[in-house]
């Protein structure tokens, strides 16, 4: 399974549109794209998961590393378009308490 990551920059916000499944094989592609912006001062990133139906723990590892790097430069990460399964993953891991998450329908789920 392939993973495609389209990157767009709107003003100061980097939007990553992720398409496909994020697992041990495809996670390096996502990591490579995210790392390009992770250490920019006050980096603001939006990760669009609306076309991701599965992410395993390797994917979560890539996300966690990105989150830590962005926090270290006083930046912010927002996640949009997660389906039910992914939302549950972010809730179980407690990541929904430290990252702003919007579901597919657009309802917000608390902020940092």
């Amino acid at each position, binding site marked *: 399974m392939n993973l495609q990551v389209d990157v767009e920059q709107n003003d100061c916000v980097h939007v990553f549109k992720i398409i496909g499944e994020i697992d041990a094989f495809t996670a390096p592609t996502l990591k490579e794209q995210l790392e390009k912006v992770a250490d920019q001062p006050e980096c603001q990133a939006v990760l669009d998961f609306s076309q991701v139906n599965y992410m*395993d*723990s*390797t994917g*979560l*590892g*890539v996300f*966690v*590393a990105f*989150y*830590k*790097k962005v926090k270290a430069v006083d930046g912010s990460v927002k996640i949009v378009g997660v389906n039910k399964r992914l939302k549950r993953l972010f809730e*179980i*891991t*407690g*990541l929904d*308490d*430290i990252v702003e998450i919007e579901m597919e329908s657009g309802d917000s789920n608390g902020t940092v």
Partner: protein
Amino acid sequence: MPQEVGKQYSALLQKYIQHEDETDLYAAQQVSRKFIEKKISPEEVISLHKTSVEEIFPELAVKIGPSYDFLIEVMIHYGLALMEHQSLIRKQEAMQIEMDVAVKVQDMLLETSIPKVEGLDIGLVSKPAKKMSGDYVYFIEQKDGEACVAVADVMGKGLPAALCMSMIKFGMDSLRSSATEPQHVLQVINQIVEKSMDDSMFISMFYGKFDKKTCEFTYGSAGHEPALLYRADEDRFIELDAKGLLLGIRKDVDFQQKSVEMSSGDFIVMLTDGVTEGRNAEGFIEEEVILDMLRTMKDRPAQQIVDHLYTELFKMQNYMLHDDFTLVLFKKE
């Protein structure tokens, strides 16, 4: 290229062409060793051969000279590919050694034994998908009839993962006589882990303890899959979730602590995502399927229940685990 070796090669070649003597072939082998010592590449050897031929047969060299240039070009790429291949093999060997060490650490250092607490029946299955597991289970038995367990899933591989597991073990061991409250244990382990882990690593962990005197099961979770409680008198399952962030992400984290009372026939299943995210050709195995299996086995001893669940789910996934598989079951007798 060192001229001395070049001259030696040229002289040897001339001698061999004249006499075709086997001792010269042996000498050629010695020269080739010198080439390796002096790091002379295969294409340089061909270039040397070309120069020698030009000296020995000047007329012939005009005709066949370009063929050597052709061969040199081929050998340059051949040499590069060979070098790349060898470096990959070296890397693979290094990784294998690290993996072997990590497996040893896991087998010896991280051993655990199932507590024997009156009135509590414990079952355990933990199977790695590959050689080394990212799942970790550690039990502690207290003198006053308490059984504590940590079920953890470490993201990452090899030695770093094994070392993370040792942090959990030593964290729990150091707290064993003082404070075993889930909230406190998770906080302490989080602080140990947060300081020492690489950015892309994290651990999810469920921690629970059963107290014989009160029959209470107290638990907390650091970003781990919720445990399942089977209520025998109601014949239903309840998810035991507790809010808490994965270990190793932030320094100060609040972990929710909850407790439930267990009655006779009740059991609690603690698991890793290798159990809940099992996949077959049609997709994910539904949670209902797992619950039904547990229900049919509810009257059996704890070990039989977990063994049955593993066998069945393994079969459903065509005898192939995609992820490490761990199940711990506490059953109130």
